[in-house]
């Protein structure tokens, strides 16, 4: 049964009183829209290692790179739940040893999700380094008519959280929201194990 049918039946049976200005289809559309609405992705700071003009690549990991392979994916929405078609997603992180590439562009990419809004990139689990508590991946998402979204993705499997990110996510003072700590799914075949993480980005309109 569709929402519209449900509303029509309720209205017909008297279970729903409609205001004169509202029709069943309009009410169904509003219901749909309210369900699509999304909270903006929480902000988390840019940090000092951003580098402009990153290459457009969906493969940041080279076959010989150390560290557990990581598959990051998601989509870019606005707060109404609509795809943001012209978004640009810049992603940067350390290598598995916790080093940013400042000279070049290792583990840096610029993605254009396109009409479907989705992005996917192959990487490795970033390392820890002394001045930061948790493993993390930086995101900068820009699109016309939207507030630039600066944030970081964290991993629920990070040893810092000791298996309880709900309780321990504040151990990294930069993590202002639990939402940024994402579950990690391990996919394995005979050749290798891959950490799979999804991270949708929700932008605020200007």
């Amino acid at each position: 049964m569709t929402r519209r049918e449900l509303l029509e039946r309720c209205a017909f049976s008297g279970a729903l009183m409609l205001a004169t200005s509202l029709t069943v289809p309009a009410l169904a559309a509003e219901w749909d829209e309210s369900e699509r609405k999304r909270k903006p992705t929480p902000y988390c700071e840019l940090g000092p290692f951003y580098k402009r003009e990153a290459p457009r690549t969906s493969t940041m990991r080279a076959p010989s790179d150390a560290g557990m392979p990581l598959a990051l994916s998601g989509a870019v929405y606005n707060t109404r739940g609509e795809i943001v078609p012209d978004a640009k997603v810049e992603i940067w992180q350390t290598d598995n040893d916790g080093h940013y590439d400042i000279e070049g562009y290792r583990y840096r990419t610029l993605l254009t999700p396109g009409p479907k809004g989705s992005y996917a990139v192959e990487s490795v689990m970033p390392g820890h380094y002394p001045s930061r508590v948790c493993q993390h991946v930086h995101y900068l998402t820009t699109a016309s008519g939207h507030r630039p979204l600066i944030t970081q993705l964290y991993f629920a499997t990070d040893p810092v959280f000791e298996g309880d990110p709900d309780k321990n996510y504040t151990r990294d003072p930069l993590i202002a929201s639990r939402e940024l700590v994402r579950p990690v799914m391990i996919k394995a075949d005979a050749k290798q194990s891959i950490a799979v993480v999804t991270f949708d980005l929700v932008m605020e309109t200007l």
Partner: protein
Amino acid sequence: MMRKLIWFAFVLLFGWPVGAATTHVANLSLPCDSYYQVPSPDGIQLAVPCKDHSLHVVSVPEGKELLVIPSERRANSIAYSRDGQWMAVGFHDGSVELVSTGGLAPSRRWQASERRIDGLYFFPDSKMLVVAPADSAGQVWDLAELPKLRATLQFDFGGINACAVSPDGKLLVVAGDDTVLRWYNTATWQKTLENREFLLETFALTFTASGKEVLAGGADARITVLDAATAKSVLQLPPETGTYIVALDVFGEQQAAAIYLDDAGEKPPQQQIWHLGNAKSISLADAPPTCEAVVGGKLWFCTTEGKMLHISEYQ
């Protein structure tokens, strides 16, 4: 005589040794664990931001405690006005407090932003203050009466990383998180020039005494000299690869001091003195630097030994 000859040969071969070019200013007992300190430009105070987010202000050279901002208020950034009369403190809650260092005027506090205040920069005449909230548009506040917002500085994204005002106060140069350097006319607040040559972020900016050049340093680990009239780079000094510059000061005859942090946070900070004329540098001290400032035209720098802070002056 022989000793003098050997000394002369040493200086000829290796340059003037660092120890001979520095003089002791003061030894102070630190009131807390502190990564860095901020001397006032008149050299009579030292602000000590503590690891617990409290802020202690002590007199120099006595080390007498003058002011304490408790840790609950979470001070995050500090700046002195050029005349040393005012100190601005930025807090985690986005508020800014303006304190009269001599206690001659009441403090003023206002809510500048919802975000943590990462940087504060006084104009040379102390009448305006640039406020840098984390990853947000920059703000220029008029301090003449109640703090009044004069201008908002927008970037492609993020906020201010560094800022410098020309000696005559007419030009403001701002380095954004977006890696762009922007020039503003402070009479109109119009952006007049920009430089998009930098791929990495700039964390330190300063004008030369003449106001004709701007020095920039940051994640590219090197000092770039820019023409203040055109925003174009005219000189790049060799990089200290694997580091990034967080502090930059010009002093004396064509000299610049820079503090470099290790990219990976594994090695201690280091400090270099550059001669802009011949692009040569020397290391200033064996111990990691914890401050640098120009006081009375001379470069002051700090090192720590346990709880003891040593302030020295480079000749």
